[in-house]
């Protein structure tokens, strides 16, 4: 039981004061962590720097405690919670109905934000590294559309944990909770879950979603059954195993960060080494196969990476939520960029940031579970990205839609004006053909299209602002020189497209872009010439190619 004693010592170490020896490496770690969360121009380098920092710190910290993970449950769960992430408030006496949020006072705030608590630093390092690795791997999982398979991996890992515990307990009583062993068990079981899904898909006609649901619930059920059995076993050393379900970031010690950091570094290196191959696999699996890439092998590699992230996230975030660490940062990053490598770096940054913010928040509010807060922080970042993301955020899309409406409205006004005048020319050959000389009134335009007077007024006002029309007197307008040119161009393109649809509809109606200014670019100059000729043959007398169908004001 030597391990127990040493661990207890490390756990009961006061959070500050006598820790000057460890402060220096911890600062370095903090700086590196901030670097990753903030800037991130050279993702891999920074992540590497961070991980190296984490490893150094972990190594230095770890040298002072026993290499084994918590062998004694009393350490992490009673002791650490109150002294470590918790801010000293005991949680046991609160009733369920007590939903008050206890706001941290100034001193607590400063202590957390300045990372003065040794254990906050440890937990922070662990989750930041985890978040970065999860974002990195998650991008490819998302693009390969394997998001739910991540859920299979995490749920399936539970029986692995239980079995690993039993085996280790049987081999060396008291050492059943050696973390690397438990995580190895989780990894094996997780991959086994994926394998079972693939086998069901291969040898039955069950669809993919059903196969995944079957596998994940059966494995999870099996895991829960094993855990409850273990808890009734005489060894009585199993308390805390169920923390893997919901996660317990507070139970992380330096040794764990060391392990997580190494694993995350490895995962990150594998991803960046095979980024090219994962990209072709995710984009075009069949083409990858014709190029001689082992599609099954690459898929297995991807699932191994996912399993790796899941396993190192089990402790802090828990198996129910770890899949969110994989998907949410990747999905959020997609709103900001159309570039895959930028997306991976961004996802890593978002993952690291949500890890860091989550830990800080749960340190300030000890009643919130760190794992959940991390995921919720990620959700906030996701929602923000969805709103204001520069590439495909909702705001950008709304803006584009608004611009489109604006442009279409403008074109409608111009075409209506032009067609109105054209109609007048047709009736009276003596009229001047200068478009800018004639008045158009609101009442003239109203029956030409399906618009309300209110909308027409708004469009006219806007056209006036854009210097396409000038208001002569109330409700009367005249096209400006600029407006007349624009109207001619709009009508010409519109009619050419119409002719194209009539002539070439059998080839590619779906490619018609009525809005395109560069019709020549889309169709090729020869086609446009041919269309123009067709128009000219039909109506040689007008300054622009007229509409192929007869234009009449739709008078009611």
């Amino acid at each position, binding site marked *: 039981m030597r391990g127990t004693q040493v661990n207890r010592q490390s756990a009961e170490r006061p959070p500050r004061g006598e820790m000057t020896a460890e402060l220096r490496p911890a600062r370095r770690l903090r700086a590196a962590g901030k670097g990753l969360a903030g800037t991130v121009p050279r993702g891999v380098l920074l992540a590497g720097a961070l991980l190296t920092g984490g490893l150094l710190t972990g190594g230095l910290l770890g040298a002072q405690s026993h290499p084994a993970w918590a062998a004694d449950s009393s350490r992490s769960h009673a002791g650490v919670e109150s002294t470590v992430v918790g801010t000293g408030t005991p949680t046991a006496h609160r009733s369920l109905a007590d939903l008050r949020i206890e706001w941290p006072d100034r001193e607590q705030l400063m202590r957390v934000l300045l990372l003065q608590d040794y254990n906050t630093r440890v937990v922070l390092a662990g989750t930041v590294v985890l978040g970065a690795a999860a974002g990195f791997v998650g991008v490819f999982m998302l693009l390969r559309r394997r998001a739910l398979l991540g859920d299979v991996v995490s749920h399936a890992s539970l029986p692995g944990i239980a079995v690993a515990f039993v085996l280790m307990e049987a081999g060396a009583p008291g050492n059943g909770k050696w973390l690397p062993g438990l995580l190895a068990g989780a990894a094996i079981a997780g991959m086994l879950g994926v394998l079972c899904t693939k086998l069901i898909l291969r040898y039955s006609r069950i669809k993919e979603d059903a196969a995944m649901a079957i596998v994940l619930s059966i494995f999870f059920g099996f895991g829960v059954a094993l855990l409850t059995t273990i808890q009734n076993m005489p060894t009585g050393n199993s308390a805390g195993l169920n923390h893997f379900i919901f996660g317990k970031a507070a139970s992380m010690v330096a040794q764990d960060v060391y392990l997580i950091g190494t694993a995350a570094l490895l995962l990150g290196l594998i991803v960046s080494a095979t980024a090219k*191959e994962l990209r*072709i696999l995710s984009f*075009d699996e069949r083409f990858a196969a014709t190029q001689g890439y082992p599609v099954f092998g690459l898929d297995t590699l991807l699932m191994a990476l996912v399993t790796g992230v899941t396993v190192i996230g089990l402790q802090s975030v828990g198996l129910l939520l770890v899949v969110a660490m994989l998907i949410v940062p990747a999905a959020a990053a997609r709103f900001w*960029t159309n570039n895959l490598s930028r997306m991976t770096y961004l996802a890593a940054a978002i993952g690291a940031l949500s890890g860091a913010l989550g830990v800080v928040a749960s340190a300030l509010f000890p009643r919130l579970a760190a794992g959940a807060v991390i995921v919720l922080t990620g959700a906030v970042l996701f929602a923000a990205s969805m709103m204001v993301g520069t590439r495909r955020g909702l705001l950008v899309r709304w803006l584009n839609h608004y611009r489109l409406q604006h442009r279409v409205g403008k074109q409608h006004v111009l075409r209506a004006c032009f067609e109105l005048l054209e109609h007048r020319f047709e009736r009276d050959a003596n009229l001047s053909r200068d478009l800018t000389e004639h008045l158009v009134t609101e009442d003239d335009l109203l029956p030409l299209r399906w618009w309300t007077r209110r909308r027409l007024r708004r469009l006219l006002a806007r056209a006036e602002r854009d210097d396409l029309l000038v208001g002569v007197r109330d409700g009367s307008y005249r096209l400006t020189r600029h407006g007349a040119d624009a109207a001619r161009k709009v009508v010409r393109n519109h009619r050419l497209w119409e002719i194209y649809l009539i002539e070439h509809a059998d*080839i590619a109606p*779906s*490619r018609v872009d009525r809005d395109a200014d560069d019709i020549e670019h889309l169709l090729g100059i020869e086609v446009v010439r041919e269309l123009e000729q067709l128009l000219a043959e039909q109506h040689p007398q007008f300054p622009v190619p007229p509409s192929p169908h007869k234009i009449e004001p739709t008078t009611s």
Partner: protein
Amino acid sequence: MIQSPSEVPAARDAAAEHPASAPLSIHDMTVAYHRKPVLWDIDYDAPAGKLVAIIGPNGAGKSTLINAVLNLVPKASGEVRIFGKPYTRQRGRVGYVPQRESVDWDFPVNALDVVLMGMYRRIGWFRRITRRYRLLAMEALDRVGMADYAKRQISQLSGGQQQRVFLARALAQDADLYLMDEPFAGVDAATERAIVEILRDLRSRGKTTLVVHHDLQTVNDYFDHVVLLNMRLIVSGPTDEVFTRENLRKTYGGKLALLDQVGHKMTLHESGP
């Protein structure tokens, strides 16, 4: 080589003497999905340096033929040789243009990235993409008239432009035999002309190209050879010899409406009564 159903036994005998160096030779290939055969006993040698159209009604197994050659679907029987060797040893000599709908065009890459994928194998595992390959990819994009769109995200390209990017990726492979799955499907007129130009350019460089094709009206203009397919190989040979109304009827069976529509456009190569 002209085959008609009545001559099938004779064709079987001929199978023993396939030219060893044909760009593509298929021997007695049968492909089945879930025990239901889609292609029966296909026996075919592609002529070197020609443009070949693979023609047949929907569900005739045109795409399956290409997929089976590329090992994308398992073969129930038969053998495929590319320039006399198994496909797995000749991957580098076969360029592939999949159907445009087969991928997610929302993927976060630009046109140049897609073209570069055609050279990943040459670049090699774990290696970075160097400037040399970027230039080669730009060259391929230029050949399909898409150099201006290299940095454009692929979802912002029109269908025809996407198809040209796929074509550029195949060109970047620098293969000797090209297999294209409906490159003309849903493209605009300009792209159709551009693709035809590229196909002719490939032919002039001595490459062999097999194209799954739908538009019967353009077969005579675009292709030297045709393969008429409907679960089995009806007939194959030079276009002006085998692309006849009679053979089309055998291929398309009772779908007369379609045939009548096409019929008057192809009086040029009418044969039979």
